[in-house]
Structures are given as structure tokens and as C-alpha cells.
């Protein structure tokens, strides 16, 4: 029996959505400040107006009074799923009024791409986008990378509902036993790395002769984008704009740090380095990257444009790290990806599809899930070959030995199948829209894994049906499907006329009996 939403559920969901909208209004402060500092008055008025809309809508929803109590799992799933969509609708407002987007759907796509840390962009004339609009694009990355619920929880909101909300956003591990302290820890680590990266990249930009204010802002933006493994960039030439090996190296390290599980960050901070190097996921990641780099280098060796060693080292390695971490930065052009780089295109797609570590800001299926499934296959083979009386137990290393239970295997299998299905469905929609099969597969994987590297399908003014499908893929991928599917089922079941009629009938029968 599917769970149906009651009027009380709707009130609770509305109330907490209002709280989330109000909290997200804080993200509008930096763009507003930047607009005022740089005298971008048109942008300032847009952000002031949007702040008003956030505050009015948030306060309006909060008026739905609810009894204080523990949030049910169904309510938490609905709040999280809807929060990502509702906030994207609001976040697109200032962008759509900027004149840099063909229509509101393009601005909505940009907002979803920003919040889900996909990083695929449909902005027109990016090089002349105002500082304030750029600031907002990267604020969306920051909020989305941390997680909207994590941001809200770190302020100590939601009280008793914290735990179920936290797990509904694709996070299951607590760094410290308390959810609020965990979210504060994630926020602190993120801000510390962004600050450090900004300082280094700003210095490198200043050495290159960039104007100080511009150097600082662009460094801040690419640093946010790198640690949140997001992918927006402030210049249309992407990372190639900086022409700096040093900046590319710094960003590679930041992207790799961003794709490390936050619980391992906590272990490193506590000085337990051994735990980090013993972790199954870390070890498999190292082997995975070495293997993929070998195949990638072999494929590039055949390419005329990339076959010289410095180009292979620089462009190849950077693209591998950007794809593995699902950041989506590019230091090759889109035409190179589909042209001279085409042999490596599938490898990039596989890297994005698999993604980074669980519990990090990276997207994709996650190395951890594949490791668990691999271990489960080994256990099956062992059981087949072992005597009938033998009992096979398998475990993996993650802050101590943990057993691979049937529940963990089931969760990993479910998510793997859902990702696979979405990748295929997106590819079919792309092919049906007239695109080349390899291009359609690449783009679908880039969207659902929140990788964001584009093969040229995602462009301003693209076909709206494809845009909406990709938007759905990004949303589903960020929430790791279960939350989204649960929300959809709840909404459909609650709104089905037959179910409404049944409930009405049941109520009448109850009245008659009483």
C-alpha cells in the first residue's frame, strides 16, 4: 500500500518548504552586495526584488501552522524533493530578467544545473554577464554542493526532523553523532578549502597581470566550483581562459579533495591518516584512475591534436580529474571533444557515470557502490565453490571493518539500476531528437551524473522537451533517485481520482457507522 499525503502532511511540507525558502534568501545577499560594490544597479534591483519574492513566499508558506513534532520519513522525502524544485523556480527569476537567457526555461535549466552542481550552462554571452549574476550562479553551486537541507540544518532549524531530512538528501553518514554538528562540520571544511584555494588562485591570477578585484572574484568562483565539484565557470573559454598550468594543477587538487567523503575529511583532521589510506573506496579510486588514465592516454595517442606529450599530460589529466569528480571543467573545446578528442569521449562518459566517492560533493553512481557490488559478486563465487557447510562473510574498510550486508547490496543495486535506466532513457530522448548516438549518450550521462561536460547538445535555446528531460535527469541524479521517486509516487497516489473517491467513500461509511 502506497502512502497517501493527508492535509496535515501537506501543511507540514508547506511549512518546512517556507523555512527552506527563507533560509535560501541568505544566498541572495552576496550577489546584492557585489552589485552595489561594483555599481551594477540594474542587477541590484533584480536581486532586491528576488529577495522580496523569497521572503514573501517563504513567510506565506510558513503561515501554515503545524504542531511541533518529529517529521515522518514520507514528509521529509517530500520536503527535500520539492525543496530542490521550488528553489530552482525562485532562483531562476533574477537570471531570466538579466537578458542573458533566451527564455525562462533556459534560466530554470541554469538554476537547476547550478543547484544540482551539474555545471552545464545555457547562458548567452557569458563573458559580459554582470558580476552579481555570476556571484548568484556560484552561490547556487555552494548551496547545492553542501546540500540545501545541510545548509538549513547547520543553522539548527527543523529540530526533531533533522535526521530524516539529512538522509533524504543522498547523505547517510554522520561525521559526528549529532546531525546539526555534522552539517556545521561539512560547511566549515568547505569554506576553509574554498578560502585556501581562492588565496592561491588569486595570487596566480595577479602574477598573470589580472586586475585585483577581477582576480579575486574569478578565483573565488572557480574555487567554489572546484570544491563543490560543480562546473560553472565565469568565462566562455572555460579553464582555458587562464592559460596557466599552475591554476589547472591547484584546481585538480581541489576537485580531488572535493570528491573525498566528508567522514574521511574528519578522520584526516583528527590526524588519523591511516584510516584514509586504508579506506576501500580510496584504494579502488586510485586503481580506477590509473586504469582509466592508461586507456585514455592510449586513445589520445592516436589523436593528431593531442598526441604530443605535454598536451596529453595537461589536457588529458585535467579532463580525467574533471570527469571523475563530476566537476565538468573543460580545458578542451566542445568541438575537440566531439572531433579530434572523440576516441576519449566514451572514457570521459564512463568516468562521469561512475563518479566520485559516496558522501562527498561528487555525483554519479559512486565508487563505493560499485565496490560493494564487486565484493558481493566475489562472495557469490566463493559460496559457489565452497563446501555446503561453509559460511562466507565479506567486509569492506571504511573507518574500521564493516560487513557487506544484503541491505547494503540491495541499496547499491537499486541505485545502480536507476542510474543506468536514466542514462539510457536520456540517451534515447537525445537520439529521438535527431542527435548522434554517441553525443546523446554522453550528454545524458553528463546530466544524470551531474558531471556537466557538454558535447554540444546543451546550448542556449535548445529544444524545450530535451531541456526539460535533462532538467529532470539533473534533479533525479542529485537526489540519487529514491527521494524523487518516492515524492512522485506520493503525489500521484494522493492525486489519483480513484484514490480520492475511495477515501471519500471510506469517510462516508465511517460517518454512517458512527
Amino acid at each position: 500500500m502506497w502512502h497517501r499525503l493527508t492535509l496535515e502532511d501537506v501543511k507540514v511540507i508547506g511549512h518546512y518548504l517556507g523555512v527552506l525558502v527563507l533560509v535560501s534568501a541568505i544566498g541572495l545577499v552576496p550577489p546584492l552586495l557585489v552589485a552595489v560594490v561594483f555599481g551594477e544597479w540594474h542587477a541590484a534591483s533584480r536581486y532586491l526584488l528576488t529577495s522580496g519574492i523569497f521572503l514573501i513566499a517563504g513567510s506565506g508558506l510558513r503561515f501554515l501552522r503545524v504542531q511541533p513534532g518529529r517529521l515522518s520519513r514520507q514528509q521529509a522525502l517530500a520536503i527535500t524533493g520539492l525543496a530542490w524544485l521550488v528553489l530552482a523556480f525562485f532562483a531562476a527569476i533574477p537570471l531570466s530578467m538579466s537578458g542573458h537567457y533566451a527564455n525562462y526555461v533556459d534560466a530554470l535549466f541554469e538554476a537547476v544545473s547550478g543547484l544540482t552542481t551539474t555545471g552545464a550552462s545555457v547562458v548567452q554571452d557569458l563573458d559580459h554577464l554582470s558580476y552579481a549574476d555570476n556571484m548568484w550562479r556560484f552561490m547556487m553551486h555552494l548551496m547545492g554542493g553542501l546540500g540545501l537541507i545541510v545548509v538549513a540544518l547547520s543553522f539548527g532549524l527543523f529540530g526533531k526532523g533533522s535526521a530524516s531530512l539529512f538522509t533524504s538528501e543522498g547523505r547517510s553518514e554522520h561525521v559526528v553523532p549529532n546531525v546539526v554538528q555534522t552539517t556545521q562540520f561539512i560547511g566549515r571544511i568547505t569554506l576553509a578549502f574554498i578560502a585556501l584555494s581562492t588565496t592561491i588562485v588569486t595570487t596566480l591570477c595577479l602574477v598573470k597581470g589580472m586586475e585585483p578585484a577581477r582576480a579575486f572574484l574569478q578565483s573565488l568562483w572557480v574555487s567554489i566550483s572546484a570544491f563543490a565539484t560543480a562546473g560553472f565557470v565565469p568565462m566562455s573559454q572555460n579553464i582555458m581562459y587562464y592559460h596557466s598550468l599552475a591554476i589547472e594543477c591547484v584546481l585538480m587538487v581541489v576537485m580531488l579533495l572535493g570528491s573525498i567523503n566528508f567522514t574521511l575529511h574528519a578522520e584526516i583532521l583528527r590526524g588519523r591518516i591511516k584510516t584514509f589510506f586504508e579506506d576501500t573506496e580510496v584504494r579502488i579510486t586510485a586503481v580506477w584512475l590509473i586504469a582509466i588514465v592508461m586507456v585514455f592516454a592510449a586513445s589520445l595517442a592516436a589523436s593528431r591534436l593531442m598526441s604530443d606529450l605535454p598536451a596529453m599530460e595537461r589536457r588529458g589529466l585535467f579532463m580525467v580529474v574533471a570527469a571523475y569528480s563530476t566537476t565538468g571543467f573543460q580545458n578542451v573545446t566542445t568541438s575537440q571533444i566531439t572531433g579530434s578528442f572523440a576516441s576519449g569521449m566514451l572514457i570521459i562518459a564512463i568516468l562521469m557515470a561512475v563518479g566520485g566517492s559516496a558522501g562527498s560533493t561528487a555525483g554519479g553512481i559512486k565508487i563505493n557502490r560499485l565496490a560493494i557490488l564487486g565484493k558481493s559478486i566475489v562472495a557469490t563465487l566463493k559460496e559457489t565453490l565452497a563446501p555446503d557447510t561453509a559460511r562466507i562473510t565479506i567486509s569492506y574498510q571504511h573507518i574500521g571493518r564493516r560487513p557487506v550486508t544484503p541491505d547494503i547490496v540491495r541499496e547499491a543495486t537499486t541505485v545502480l539500476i536507476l542510474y543506468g535506466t536514466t542514462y539510457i532513457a536520456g540517451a534515447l530522448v537525445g537520439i529521438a531528437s535527431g542527435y548522434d548516438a554517441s553525443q546523446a549518450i554522453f550528454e545524458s550521462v553528463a546530466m544524470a551524473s551531474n558531471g556537466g561536460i557538454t558535447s554540444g547538445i546543451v546550448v542556449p535555446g535548445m529544444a524545450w522537451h530535451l531541456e526539460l528531460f535533462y532538467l529532470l535527469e539533473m534533479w533525479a541524479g542529485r537526489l540519487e533517485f529514491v527521494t524523487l521517486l518516492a515524492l512522485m509516487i506520493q503525489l500521484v497516489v494522493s492525486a489519483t481520482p480513484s484514490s480520492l473517491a475511495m477515501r471519500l467513500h471510506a469517510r462516508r461509511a465511517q460517518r454512517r457507522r458512527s
Partner: protein
Amino acid sequence: MKKERENWVDMAPDALLGYAVVVLALVCFMILLAIVVAGVRILTGMGAA
């Protein structure tokens, strides 16, 4: 709050050392990947191209 702050201060040397080792490992890993690229290039016989 105060106790938590004290913990952070106590942890600072360990944390710095921890991250220094991890960043160093990442850099070494990137160098290893670069060597792998060069090795594959030689093996595929594209060195002279």
C-alpha cells in the same frame, strides 16, 4: 561552544599534518598518472610521431 573551540585548537597540528600528507599523496598520485600517460605513449609507439 567554548569546549568545541578548544577541541579545534587542540586538533590543529594533527589536522595540518593530516592534510599535508593527503595533499602530498594527491600530488604524487597526479605525477604517477602523468608517468603512466608517458609510459602508455611509449608503449603504443607514438613517441616519434
